[in-house]
């Protein structure tokens, strides 16, 4: 029982980061029908910014807003340079464009920085734990869960209660008609990319605090977690993306702690097996999005 509770808390901590990443993916998928395989590049870029600033001796308190800002700006720049040119294209084109962006960004670091791992120091409290009864809880997980909760509430308010959120939802439902109503496509899409960047920035801070290093291909893992979680939750559903993130985090933690040691390093493989099974038995993901397809 205690072990399960322990897993639950660990899983929530891990899942929080995935949920933020997945939500960022889902927001963009909603307005542009683009599944952003370049989402992880926001973390790659942030990682190098963290490396440069922290190795200059800057504190994490200062670097945190810089990282979030970097993610937002990078997200907007990528939209401007690449995605704005393929708006309304087929899924195939959109997917490959984002895949291309992923490669160009990581290749730039490969070309101009280096292929080797760059490490930076992590804040001291990341590894601290405290105990409640027999539970050992990381300070880090507590912070992550708390910040994620606040972020999710804020995002929910933004989307449900503001005119921007209304425009975002209208554009996600029917882009052309939203434009006919005066919704500016640039505003909505850039807003979505900024929001996605903000969410990735927050997730990125935690990701980098835990990793303490970066490489040109660092974006692959967070990208994959984000898109997989969004898919598990049900593509197109914001709630589903968040749920998918937590489910993925929990599944990973549970598997890792339950699998025998000899195969524990293959957790990713087993997680994939579970996901494949999920899609065979529930192909629409956890939350079904009503298809507005007129027949």
């Amino acid at each position: 029982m205690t072990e399960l509770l322990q897993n639950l808390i660990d899983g929530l901590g891990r899942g929080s980061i995935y949920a933020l990443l997945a939500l960022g993916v889902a927001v963009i998928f909603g307005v542009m029908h683009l599944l952003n395989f370049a989402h992880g590049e926001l973390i790659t870029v942030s990682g190098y910014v963290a490396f440069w600033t922290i190795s200059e001796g800057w504190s994490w308190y200062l670097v945190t807003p810089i990282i979030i800002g970097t993610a937002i700006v990078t997200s907007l720049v990528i939209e401007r340079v690449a995605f704005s040119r393929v708006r309304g294209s087929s899924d195939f084109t959109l997917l490959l464009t984002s895949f291309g962006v992923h490669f160009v960004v990581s290749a730039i670091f490969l070309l101009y920085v280096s292929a080797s791992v760059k490490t930076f120091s992590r804040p001291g409290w990341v590894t601290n734990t405290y105990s409640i009864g027999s539970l050992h809880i990381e300070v880090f997980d507590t912070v992550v869960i708390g910040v994620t909760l606040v972020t999710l509430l804020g995002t929910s308010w933004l989307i449900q209660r503001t005119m921007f959120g209304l425009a975002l939802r209208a554009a996600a439902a029917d882009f052309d008609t939203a434009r006919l109503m005066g919704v500016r496509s640039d505003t909505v899409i850039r807003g979505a990319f900024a929001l996605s960047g903000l969410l990735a920035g927050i997730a990125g801070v935690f990701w980098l605090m835990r990793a303490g290093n970066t490489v040109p291909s660092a974006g692959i893992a967070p990208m994959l977690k984000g898109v997989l979680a969004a898919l598990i939750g049900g593509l197109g559903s914001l709630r589903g993306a968040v749920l998918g993130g937590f489910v993925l985090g929990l599944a990973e933690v549970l598997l890792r702690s339950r699998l025998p040691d000899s195969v524990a390093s293959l957790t990713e493989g087993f997680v994939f097996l579970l996901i494949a099974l999920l899609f065979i038995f529930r192909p629409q993901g956890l939350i079904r999005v009503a298809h507005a397809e007129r027949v």
Partner: protein
Amino acid sequence: MLEVSRLTTRYGAISALRDADLHVGSGEVVGLIGPNGAGKTTLLGSIAGLLSPAAGSVTFDGTDITGNSPEKLLRLGVALVPEHRRIFGDLTVEENLKIGGITQSRDERAELLHEMGDRFPVLREKRTVAAGYLSGGESQQLAIARALMSKPRLLMMDEPSLGLAPVLVDVVFELIETLRSQGRTLLVVEQNATRMLEVADRAYVLRSGEVVAEGTGSELRERPDLFDTFVGGNGQ
């Protein structure tokens, strides 16, 4: 007010619209009629900025607006009620209206919302209902009210009676009549040529992508070459 000159629009290899000329004066109600595939929807789409014309020009109040984006045109005062109404089904009725008034200030929007509630009581009654649950007639009212929320100076409607039972077609034409009596400028695409000519000041007839005739209802009705445009005339 609106001046369309030699407008041509293509889909790939096909010109859906060729050298179309058209003008709408302030306070006029103008109909666009013609058989299916004649290019009526293409013409409205090209004016509203949903399609980019290959040649020709559109001017509104003397400003060249050819190829402007729909969101810019809306701010200039050109609104379009699209074919099939295109209501946001997952949003509530009130949210649909708010989106329509996105270009207005917060206070103005609230005032317009109130005004639409007075004019379309059924929308006020169902304001918290998801718009997807409205009936055909109700959602057509919502589509028009949503467009009116932007206080357009030129309101274009694409097939407002399409897919509606005859009873509800009456409701739509009554609404057009009301808007007309308020002095609004309207450009309406309609299949139902007979009914349209009863409410329009003038109309244009399109066929195979070209404007083939222009005139008042009685003028057009008397042209024998346009007979097939009116024959049968769904007017029950």
